[in-house]
């Protein structure tokens, strides 16, 4: 009986987590404390559907299946796409094994496409077995600063240096003067901060530490260069949890906890989360609208390898992530190559209407056009497969 109950309880839990991960968008709670945050995430903006035109017909003769692996941050969106896209005759099987895993799988040519939240390094590109790899941005996401503090709702204000000091163990109490200064009206308790971070290598960690490295001198001086940034870092303090689900569960369970997790996971796990000060000095709530804003005025290099953290737009959320599909420029299998082009084109046009429904952000017009430009570069036997007309060359 005991065993049965345990199993039943576990089963219910798994079901709960599964259903939570397809939870719908819900409006973020207004700033509960501290400096007033401007209206950034109205419900209307949250159901962002750009309705990008799909200008080319799908190529005939596409393979019936595509395999992909990589980022867990992007997994909810890619799964949603795969489900919707299966009616078009191609099944996309995606495994969320982590961004680093995505890079190594595409390098070893064991999947048709990889996916990573951090661009591949020059050394990784040189080691890829199948030649040049294209970075194709797919969708934007926000890394939320989630917490579990007694009596405090969503909307605490943070800035980079404060977060950095919490993650180095220099700030250990929730009522520390530095946090109080950012949240003068909040009734912060005398509670020890339990920092929660990823224990496995993670693209989310890569994005978060990229942001800390740009904004927190305390963080960089403690971790050093280049150790302050990456998918795996030497956390000076805190509790490590495996996977985004693990971090979400732990923050929900631990009083006084503070950690970073992709916004959708925070919402699905009913976590409270804060606003983060951006380059313009405004405290920004993470949501699709503020993520899209981060990509608005960003100039990307020709190979698209760039980060979206700490950008200058007025309403840009400073810890915005973009996830890149990693695709070999020179394809050898005609069916797979056509299926890849068809799927990516669809994902970058019609597919962009989906992300906002699960709290990811569609790409802004400029970035979307640049991404389509990358698709144009995919070649089969040395010849380009499509020529999608685009308005912003890169």
């Amino acid at each position, binding site marked *: 009986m*005991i*065993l049965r109950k*345990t*199993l039943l*309880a*576990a089963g219910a*839990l*798994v079901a709960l987590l599964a259903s939570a991960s397809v939870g719908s968008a819900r409006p973020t709670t207004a700033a509960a404390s501290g400096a007033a945050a401007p209206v950034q995430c109205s419900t209307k903006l949250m159901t962002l559907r750009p309705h990008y035109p799909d200008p080319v017909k799908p190529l005939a003769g596409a393979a019936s299946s595509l395999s992909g692996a990589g980022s867990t941050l992007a997994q909810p969106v890619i799964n949603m796409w795969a489900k919707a896209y299966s009616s078009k005759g191609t099944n996309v099987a995606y495994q969320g*094994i*982590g*961004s*680093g*895993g995505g*890079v*190594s799988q595409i390098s070893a040519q064991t999947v048709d496409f990889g996916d990573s939240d951090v661009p591949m390094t020059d050394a*990784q590109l040189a080691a890829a077995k199948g030649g040049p790899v294209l970075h194709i941005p797919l969708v934007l996401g926000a890394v939320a600063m989630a917490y579990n503090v007694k009596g405090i709702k969503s909307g605490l204000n943070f800035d980079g240096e404060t977060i950095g000091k919490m993650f180095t163990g220099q700030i250990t109490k929730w009522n520390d003067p530095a946090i109080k200064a950012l949240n003068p009206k909040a009734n912060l308790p005398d509670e*020890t901060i*339990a920092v929660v971070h990823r*224990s*496995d*290598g*993670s693209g989310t960690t890569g994005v978060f530490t990229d942001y800390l490295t740009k904004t927190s001198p305390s963080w960089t001086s403690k971790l*050093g260069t*280049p*150790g302050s940034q*990456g*998918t*795996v*870092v*030497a*956390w*000076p303090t*805190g*509790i*490590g*949890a*495996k996977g985004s689900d*693990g971090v979400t*569960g*732990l923050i929900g*369970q*631990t009083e*006084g*906890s503070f950690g970073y997790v992709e916004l959708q996971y925070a919402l699905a796990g009913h976590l409270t989360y804060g606003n983060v000060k951006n380059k313009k000095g405004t405290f920004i709530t993470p949501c699709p609208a503020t993520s899209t804003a981060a990509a608005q005025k960003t100039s990307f290099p020709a190979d698209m390898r760039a980060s979206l953290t700490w950008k200058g737009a007025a309403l840009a959320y400073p810890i915005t992530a973009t996830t890149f599909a990693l695709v070999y420029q020179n394809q050898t299998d005609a069916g797979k190559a056509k299926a890849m082009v068809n799927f990516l084109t669809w994902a970058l046009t019609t597919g962009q209407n989906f992300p906002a429904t699960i709290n990811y952000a569609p790409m802004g017009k400029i970035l979307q056009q640049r991404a389509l430009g990358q698709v144009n570069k995919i070649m089969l036997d040395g010849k380009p497969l499509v020529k999608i007309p685009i308005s912003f060359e890169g």
Partner: protein
Amino acid sequence: MSAASHRAGVRKAQALQQQRLRLGDSVFRAIVAGSAAIVLLAFVATAFFLVRKSWPALSHYGVLSFVGSSRWTPSTAVATTAHPNPYGVLQFVYGTVLTSVIAMLLAVPVAVGLALYITDVAPPRLRKPLAYVVDLFAAVPSVVYGFWGIFALLPVLHPIADHLTSWLGGIPVVGKVFAGPFFGPSYFAAGIVLAIMVLPIVTAICREVFAVAPVAEKEAALALGATRWEMLRISVLKRSTAGIFGASLLGLGRAFGETIAVTMLIGNSVLAITTSIFGQGATMPSVIANEFTEATEPFHLQSLFVVGTLLLLITLVINVLGKLVVSRISETIA
């Protein structure tokens, strides 16, 4: 047909049959020996594979530099310099041993009591079902224990740990062991879940050890006027101490290798040894589970193989010791 030729024919037939039998025998023998060889070969191949995979890191940094450090920082690894070795593993050995010791301290007394109850005290009707239920605990997947640990156990542990900290935290040496704050995931939490996970195997072996205690001696003790407790103490427990020790060692072997439940509950801090049982740490299996998918730094994956090799070595020693002790007991009793 003469009688002589008939006899010769019979002999021939018998010889043929015998030959066939011998052939069948040898085929059978080859098949079972082959099965045994496959197991041995698989083990040797695994060990060889682990050592070969970890060899680049071992030769680059030197064997001793791994066990000489308790700091694991892959992000600081540089391909060209061997020192200081960023892949210290001492804290993983410590974490593995500490969680397992906590588990054994909690599980062994319960397992001994449970096994005694099942073999000698419980009403005969209850014995089999009870033993079955205990065995069933071993069938619960490890990840379920992890889930249960996070969502059911941690909230219950919180007040207990806080009390322990406030009672014992001030005492000089003991205080360090029970120092707060308790956030949840910790050596302590991982140890408790491990205790539940090793309970079935320790109980099962203890049951076998207790079952071979001679009935004559038990009856003699009772006939001499011993109470049931005295009988159990004199004729069962006393001669079973080595057996219980062996059972504990086998349980320890199980605890050492446990991965997912521990990974979910230990807090995964890989930087140093934490003295408090309420602190966060990591074990040898947990660091492998956490990092192998994204082991992209220089010598990172190879160093994880070093951890794997070390784990294999330690569990092997513990298991062989346990088996030796248990088999020696069975022999002396029987």
